[in-house]
């Protein structure tokens, strides 16, 4: 069998396609022969020529993340042919809505405690002044739904999920070094 550009064995793509893996094969850096299923999924959903076109439109340093995200989407679509990744998005959006409600309720409790529940006539706690130590209530809800809508351009799919949990990410979840505050991002 012909050797790949890594001089070891054909990449998973060329093995799958039963062709010679030439030096400079566009797939070889991203589809190692040890992961045949990765290319099999990508080929099944997107097709080799579409993936080639997609990769050729990107800069070399973007291709690895692109391939990994395509592989993730392809695996999701193989496991859930109807909803694919959209099912995971829908699940996560519902989770955020639930958390937002819990946070609203917790903030309401906090405000109630801070302003109503601790009578000023009580002797101060030895280690804590209940008035001075009162943290500012988080009365501004985190604008998750707005941020999600902005980020996704109005993406809001309310269909039921085929199965509950999203999949493990194959790469660092903060590739562009975004801050933890989740500030506005440009397509990550």
């Amino acid at each position, binding site marked *: 069998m012909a050797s790949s550009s890594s001089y070891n064995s054909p990449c998973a793509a060329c093995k799958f396609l039963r062709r010679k893996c030439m030096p400079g094969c566009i797939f070889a850096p991203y589809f190692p022969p040890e992961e045949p299923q990765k290319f099999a999924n990508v080929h*099944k*959903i*997107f*097709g080799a*020529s*579409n993936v080639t076109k*997609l990769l050729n*439109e*990107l800069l070399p340093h973007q291709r690895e*993340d*692109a391939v990994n*995200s395509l592989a993730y*989407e392809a695996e999701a*679509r193989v496991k859930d*042919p*109807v909803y*694919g*990744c*959209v*099912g*995971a*998005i829908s699940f*996560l959006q519902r*989770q*955020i809505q639930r*958390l937002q409600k*819990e*946070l609203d309720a*917790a903030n309401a409790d*906090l405000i109630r*405690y*801070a302003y109503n*529940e*601790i*009578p000023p006539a*009580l*002797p101060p*706690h030895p280690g*804590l002044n*209940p008035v001075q130590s009162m943290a500012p209530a*988080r009365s501004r809800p*985190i604008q*998750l739904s707005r*941020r*999600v809508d902005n*980020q*996704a*351009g109005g*993406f809001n*799919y309310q*269909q039921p999920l085929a199965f509950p949990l*999203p999949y493990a990410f194959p790469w660092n*979840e*903060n590739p562009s070094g*975004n801050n*933890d*505050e*989740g500030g506005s991002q440009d*397509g*990550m």
Partner: protein
Amino acid sequence: MISGRCAACKYLRRRCPSHCIFSPYFPPNDPQRFACVHRIYGASNVGKMLLKLPPHLRAQTADTLYMEAKCRIQDPVYGCVGIISHLHQQIRIAESQLAKTQAEIAVFNSIAREAQVQEIEADSNFFKNLLPEEITAAGLRSYGYGSPSTQTFKFN
């Protein structure tokens, strides 16, 4: 019938057969929908995916394929996986905020509980020091118990 072609057959410049797999889901008035899907998946792959599914699931499948294709066109590197990653991040932030808020509530709870305990202990000490005959309503009032203006106790 050329005028009745679906968006897919128009795009592919072919006759639209009577049982075209695309026509229910890619109407001619939305050419962009099929163009997106074709660009990312290819007509053949979309057709295969739809054919593998029972008819009642195909509309949803076409919708989700279109959404994913649109995301990929807008973000060629991450596609809708970028959105998933962003949502995960938002969930982490929300959970962290919720944990902090709940911790603050727990602090207030413990202050309130301690205040209640102190109040109960104060009442208990007060009654311990009373003679039995003083524990009457009149006696209590004479000690100022129950009168807001005289609720100052000295604790030993």
